[in-house]
Structure formats: structure tokens, C-alpha cells
């Protein structure tokens, strides 16, 4: 577990009653039911050989031109023997819907959860109630769990704020800290200890040396070494847009409905963009790396981001979980050289 991507899925051991999740869902409901959510994405990308999992997904019948994350989480679920999942059917891609159909056909117990595109509080409340009902818990128990988990989210938020303020924390460390909060490593107390230890360590470090402050917009990149590559070239990702959304740091202290309505990722592009631009401005980023997974509909948003970003945008994409390729490296280098040139002229 010493590769950068392994850090996001640093599970000690998977509980027998784990419930797989296909993206961020109201995990409070699952914890309140005495079960343990496991983010299948983290499980896939931190596996010893994630590329083998995407290959396995393809071999099982998923088309080549289908998102690697879908193929990877399909195979990861089987590899780790998780028999029950919560899948997001609204607010995520339609590939996930088909994935749930495949799982059902294989006898996996599937719960569907949709973030209402209307973003109506009452509609979301109804959906939360339905999910809670499926897990046999009352929403009030989930609300209590939210308060407990918010204490842990607050630690990730501290790391995020320290980064924003110029503390010495690497792109990868912040990424992992935020990603841990998608499922709290299926062990909230262990997750709390890990975040506390990270914070204590950060506070002992001298302030960060000057680096080019960048934001990364989009879903977590499938590259295995993107953050180190950016850092080796003199950049630093001070804003991980979607991981920050996944960690729900803006919804700390709010009830479930408010927090999951404030969670911009599953709703409209405009909701995501306004959140991203405000956070980017607050962190004074010099540029934005826009990552979109190969074959993902989110590529279409690229033009909308470029039109409103107000800072240079570099668009990157990748298909399989491999190291940064020569072409992507050239793009990154050229992107960073732009500022080097400006400083010199």
C-alpha cells in the first residue's frame, strides 16, 4: 500500500457486512444500519493491479469504449466478495445504471439511489427515507450519524484549508484525505486517527516552498502518478474539486437534506461550476487542469468550463489506470512552462 493511488483505499480489512457504493451516497444511512460502506472506486484503484481489473471487466463483456471506472468497480466488487451495493442512478452517468442491471443479473443485492435533478429538498428527503427504509433504519439515526461523521469531515476540511493557506501538504496527501471521506475507510475511528495524524504532521512542517497553484476539476484521475508528475514539474493541486465535493466539507454541521443538496457533483453543471470557480478564486489558482475520463459524457462540459474559467485550462483524459504517458506529460510540462515564461519575461 505505498503507491499513491493505494493511499485512497487504505482499508485495514474489509468488514464482512460491507456495502459497496458506486460513488458518494448518503453513507450515514448505511453506518446507521450498522453496516459499512466501501467506495468501490477506491477499492478498484488501490488494488494491487487495477489494470487487471479493467481487463477483467472487459473480458466479462463490458465494451472497450466504456468507462474504465465502471469496468474496474465491476471487477473489484467480485474480487473482494461484496454482495450488496448502493448504486447512484441519477446524478451520475448512465453507464452506472447498466452496471447495476448486470449486477442484479448476477444475484448482487442492489439498492438504487438518485439525487433529484430538480434539487428539491422534499424530493431528496423522500429518497433518503426510501433508502433508510431499505436498510431498516430511521432517518433520525442517520442524522445522528451525520453529526459523528462531520467531526471526521472537519479534519479533512482542516487539511483542505491548510492547503488553501499555503501549508506544506502535497497534492496527493490532500487528495487522499478528501477521498477517505467518501466511505471513511469503512472504519470511521481509524479514518479519524489517520486524518488527525496527517494534520499533526502537516502542522510540524515548515511553510510550503512556492509552487504553481493549480486546481484539478473533474472526477478523480485514473492515472497512477498524476499528482507526483504535477509536483515534479513545480505545480501543486491546491483544489481537488470533486474529491472536495465527495468529502462534503461544505455541508458540515448541516442536516442530511441540506448537506446533500449542497453537494454540487450530482446536480447541474451550473451548480458544479459556481462551486468550483468560487473555491478556485479563494485559493488563487493560476490554472485549472480539467480531467475527464475517456468515453465520459463530462468531456462535453469542457467548453463550458473554458468559457467561464477566467484562468488557463488544460484538459487531460485517460482511459486505463496506468502511469502518465509521454503525451500527457508534454501537455503538463507545456502548461507549467507558460508560467515559467511569464515569470522570465
Amino acid at each position: 500500500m505505498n503507491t499513491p493511488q493505494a493511499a485512497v483505499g487504505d482499508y485495514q480489512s474489509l468488514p464482512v457486512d460491507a456495502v459497496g457504493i458506486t460513488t458518494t451516497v448518503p453513507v450515514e444511512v448505511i453506518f446507521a444500519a450498522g453496516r459499512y460502506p466501501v467506495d468501490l472506486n477506491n477499492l478498484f484503484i488501490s488494488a494491487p493491479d487495477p489494470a487487471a481489473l479493467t481487463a477483467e471487466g472487459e473480458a466479462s463483456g463490458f465494451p472497450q469504449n466504456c468507462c474504465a471506472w465502471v469496468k474496474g468497480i465491476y471487477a473489484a466488487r467480485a474480487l473482494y466478495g461484496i454482495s450488496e451495493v448502493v448504486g447512484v442512478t441519477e446524478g451520475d452517468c448512465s453507464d452506472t445504471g447498466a452496471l447495476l442491471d448486470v449486477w442484479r443479473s448476477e444475484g448482487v443485492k442492489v439498492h438504487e439511489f438518485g439525487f433529484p435533478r430538480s434539487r428539491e429538498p422534499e424530493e431528496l428527503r423522500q429518497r433518503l427515507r426510501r433508502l433508510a427504509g431499505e436498510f431498516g433504519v430511521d432517518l433520525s439515526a442517520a442524522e445522528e450519524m451525520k453529526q459523528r461523521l462531520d467531526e471526521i469531515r472537519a479534519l479533512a476540511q482542516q487539511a483542505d484549508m491548510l492547503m488553501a493557506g499555503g501549508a506544506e501538504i502535497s497534492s496527493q496527501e490532500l487528495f487522499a484525505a478528501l477521498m477517505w471521506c467518501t466511505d471513511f475507510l469503512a472504519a470511521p475511528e481509524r479514518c479519524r486517527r489517520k486524518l488527525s495524524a496527517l494534520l499533526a504532521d502537516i502542522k510540524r512542517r515548515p511553510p510550503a516552498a512556492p509552487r504553481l497553484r493549480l486546481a484539478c476539476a473533474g472526477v478523480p484521475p485514473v492515472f497512477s502518478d498524476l499528482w507526483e508528475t504535477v509536483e515534479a514539474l513545480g505545480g501543486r493541486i491546491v483544489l481537488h474539486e470533486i474529491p472536495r465535493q465527495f468529502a462534503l466539507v461544505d455541508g458540515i454541521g448541516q442536516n442530511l437534506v441540506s448537506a446533500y443538496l449542497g453537494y454540487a457533483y450530482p446536480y447541474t453543471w451550473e451548480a458544479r461550476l459556481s462551486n468550483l470557480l468560487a473555491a478556485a478564486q479563494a485559493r488563487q489558482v493560476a490554472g485549472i487542469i480539467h480531467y475527464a475520463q475517456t468515453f465520459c459524457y463530462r468531456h462535453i462540459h469542457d467548453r463550458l468550463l473554458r468559457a467561464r474559467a477566467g484562468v488557463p485550462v488544460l484538459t487531460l483524459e485517460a482511459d486505463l489506470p496506468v502511469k502518465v504517458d509521454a503525451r500527457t506529460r508534454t501537455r503538463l510540462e507545456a502548461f507549467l512552462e507558460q508560467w515559467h515564461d511569464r515569470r522570465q519575461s
Partner: protein
Amino acid sequence: MQYRLGLDLGSTTAKAVVLGPDNRIVASVVRESGYDLKTAAEYLWQEAARLAGVNGDLPCVATGYGRALASMAKRTATEITCHARGICFLHPDAAAIVDMGGQDAKVIRLGAAGRVEEFAMNDRCAAGAGVFLDLVARRFQRSLAELSHLPQVEKAPEISSTCAVFAETEIVGLLASGQPAEAVLVGTHRALARRVAALCRQIRLASPLYFSGGVALNETMRRELSAVLGMPVLRAEHAQLTAAIGAALLAGET
């Protein structure tokens, strides 16, 4: 200012340029990159110095895919930065660049003094690059030079595929259906121009737009690109050498 060397170790061809103290090109060498870019770099370094008639270690900057393999270079820079420098040196009025090389296409919007303001590169597909034209030339048993002056064809057949391999299959189908070879060839160039034009739309393209890279030597491609973009596309001077020139200029700055 002393003599400086720029090396552009591209995917298909490797180029070297020596600039003299007055910034004149005193030597240039172009050869196939081959599979051993390290050897190509050594050869270019020695041959360019020999042609320039200079001895000793020339300050050198390397660019291109193989840039990290040029051990004689005191630093490396990306092709994007080097093209920008090179084009602005050759054409101070340049506002944007389309570069089409062996494996990729790049579009660059320029700021003051050859600074890169914005750029975009094609993705992992040869259908936007020179290697595709190589493939097409072989299929039609023509040289690349012969592709350069194809006649104007108003209604060339459509090549719809975005993949070089499938595009070749489409070409075979068109020829089998009796389409004239010249028309299919123009259609192929037009399809390539459309892909590059889509790349151009990712940045705020400005005029004058200069065309560089090995594919810029192909006049048919320049004409089709200009028609698709609806704006003049000017072939850069020393079109194949612009990145190497930019690298040599950088070697004088560092």
C-alpha cells in the same frame, strides 16, 4: 552571443538547427528518428556542429518526444514552447500556430514575445497526424510529395471515421465503389483538416495563423485546412524546423 544548437527529437523525424551569433541558421540537419532516439540525438549533435564548422560543446536545448534522451542538452523544453519561440522569431506577426507532426497535432495561441497563451493537442489517435498521411500515401502508392499538390475537388467523398485504421478501411471501400483516387485523396485531407479544425476551436484562434511541422510541407493540407477554418493558413518558413529553431533560441537564453 555564441553559436547554439536546438534539437527536436520528434516521433518520426529528428531535427537539429545551429544558430549563429547573429541568429542566422548556419546549419540544419533532418533525419528519421528511428527507434533509437539517443543515437539520433548524438548523430544530429555531431553532424550539425560539423556543418556549422564549430567545435566544442554547443549550448543545446532539446525538445520533442525524445527530449529527455538528449544527454548533451543542458535543459529540455516542450515542443509547444519551442514552436511558439521559433515561429515568433521567424514571423513576428504570428498570432497562432497549427503544428502537424508525425504523431500529433497542436494548436497554439501566442502572446507577446512568443509566449504561449493557450494550446490544445490531439488525443491518442493518429487520424490527426502526419503518420496517417504516410499510411494513405502507401495505400495509394504515392510519395508524400505527390500528395502535396492534389487538384481542387469540390465534392470529395466523406471519410467519416475518427480512427486512422477504420479510415483506411473506409478508403478501401470508397475505391472499391469506383470513386476516383484523386477525389478520395482530397477527401482524406479534408477529413484530417476537419479534425484539426475541431482542435483549433478549443482555443481562441487568432490571425495570422501559421502552419508548421512536417505536414505543413503538404500544400493540399494547407489549402484544405484554410477552407475548413475559413481563414488564411500561412505556411511557416522552415516549417519542419520551427521547434528546433525555438530550442536553439532558448539555448541562448539559459
